[in-house]
């Protein structure tokens, strides 16, 4: 008689019992997951932030958030999506706070919900970075350093419509970068979508993918609009591409301001408004602003702080009342230095 025998006997005698135990174990463990996740959803010190790929993928938030958690004990779960999606999540109340870059849609978010109460409250302008127009070194559209934005966009338009030697790749995904690009075409009163040119390609992809497509343009004549942070993380790989236009002195069209907006607790009562206000307080405090300026990737500064000075940096219509609103939330971070 082998030693396995009694165990086998035991197993075959209690098939039903073993089956029930298995189900109980499975049900119990899954039940535990659901309970833990449910409790986390109620925990006032765990908030969810929807932000754009450009802020998250640059590593900025992975640098800032641990410092915030260290001071306050509040944990932040970050969803890295496009501006359009982040705003949609804010509207549905699936997140507690958004950090995005598309001024017109941010304004719509804080001013209108179709009802009496706005979706978001108290937008704070926390930082900005720059947009660049990059293209192949052959530069068929002949963009020159120092060209202002009207000249740049007109040259690209002529390259697509008359020269047929320029291809522009558009994100086409409703992101902040996409809406910025559309506003730049608007500057010269041209609509690439209705213009019916084959040289304007709507790729419907993220920034990294759009850069890859531009890089692989068959005739080396692709151009696209990119934020500086994403460009810095890719420019080593894409050696045939370079910066062909950037913000010139005295113009702010290519500046890219980011706003943080708490979701309105009147509209969505379940959002964790108190913790969110402490987070906005952190970002807008002198400590948070210093941290943003100190963050470097590839030896370059990616974002510049602008809370309180956004009127000068990019003629932002933020009022003094909106700025002073956050002052009480700065007291937690007084005396901290980076």
């Amino acid at each position: 008689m082998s030693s396995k025998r009694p165990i086998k006997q035991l197993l075959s005698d209690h098939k039903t019992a073993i089956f029930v135990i298995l189900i109980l174990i499975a049900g119990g463990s899954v039940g535990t997951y659901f309970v833990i996740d449910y409790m986390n959803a109620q925990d006032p010190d765990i908030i969810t932030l929807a932000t754009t790929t450009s802020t998250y993928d640059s590593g900025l938030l992975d640098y800032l958030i641990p410092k915030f958690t260290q001071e306050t004990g509040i944990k932040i779960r970050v969803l890295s999506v496009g501006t359009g999606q982040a705003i949609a999540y804010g509207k549905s109340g699936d997140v507690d706070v958004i950090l995005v870059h598309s001024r017109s849609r941010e304004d719509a978010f804080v001013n209108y919900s179709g009802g009496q109460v706005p979706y978001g409250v108290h937008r704070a302008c926390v930082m900005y970075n720059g947009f660049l127009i990059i293209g192949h070194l052959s530069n068929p559209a002949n963009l020159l350093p120092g060209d202002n934005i009207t000249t740049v966009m007109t040259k690209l338009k002529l390259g697509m419509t008359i020269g047929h030697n320029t291809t522009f790749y558009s994100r086409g995904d409703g992101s902040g970068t996409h809406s910025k690009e559309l506003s730049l075409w608007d500057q010269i009163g041209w609509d690439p979508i209705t213009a019916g040119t084959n040289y304007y390609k709507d790729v419907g992809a993220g920034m990294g993918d759009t850069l890859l497509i531009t890089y692989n343009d068959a005739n080396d004549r692709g151009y696209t609009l990119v934020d500086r942070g994403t460009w810095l993380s890719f420019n080593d790989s894409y050696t045939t591409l370079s910066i062909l236009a950037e913000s010139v002195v005295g113009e702010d069209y290519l500046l890219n301001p980011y706003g943080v907006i708490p979701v309105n607790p009147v509209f969505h009562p379940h959002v964790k408004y108190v913790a969110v206000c402490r987070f906005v307080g952190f970002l807008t405090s002198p400590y948070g602003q210093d941290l943003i300026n100190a963050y470097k990737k590839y030896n370059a500064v990616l974002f510049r702080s602008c809370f309180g000075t956004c009127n000068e940096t990019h003629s932002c219509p933020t009022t003094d009342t909106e700025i002073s609103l956050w002052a009480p939330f700065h007291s937690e971070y007084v005396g901290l230095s980076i």
Partner: protein
Amino acid sequence: MANEIIEGILEALRLMFTFDPELWGIIEVSFRVSLTSTFLAALLALPIGSYIGLREFRGKKTLTNLINTFMGFPPVVMGLIIFLLLSNTGPFGSLGLLYSASAMIVAQFFLAVPIITGTAKAAIESVDPMLKETILSLGANERQLWWELIKDSKKSIIAGFLVAFGQAISEVGAVMIVGGNIRWVTRTFTTSIVLQTRMGEFGMAIALGIILISIAFIVNYGLTRIQSRGS
């Protein structure tokens, strides 16, 4: 790009052997979610699949067609459906389960159920009819017959379970939508690869891909051994 592949292989080795907490966190989330969902799906799908395989009833053909269709259900659509159900504006929004491991388990569960049901049904049907008659002639009741047939076709059933698990762990669309790729919480192999590629960190992305393939290979190898020993 050749540099990046070599860099990726080195990075993969480095991350594995230095027990990088981020990497092991990703492995833990991926396995916890996919194993749980597949196991739960098997608990529901095995009885249903073997019942359909064993019995004849009206509408069996339609049901079979339906199961076969759902076996190829686009995961990203499943993600969208679960997202809409769990979103704050959806019917289960108040649970707050969106962007959690639970949400990913739910999505993968509904993807795995048709796969395991379909393979269990096919496995039971493919059992030699002679065996069925022999078992019955030995005086077995219905429940004993059912159990014997499952035992006889266990290889195919394990294979079905493996297919479902393989799909679950390598799937990206649904878990991205309902999980949100949150660091330490819902970041899996696949969503992490998407993120690393987007960030231009090809080395890390390839490293994760290599580790995912290796783990899949080891799991499959182990289970194949179990299968062949069982016969």
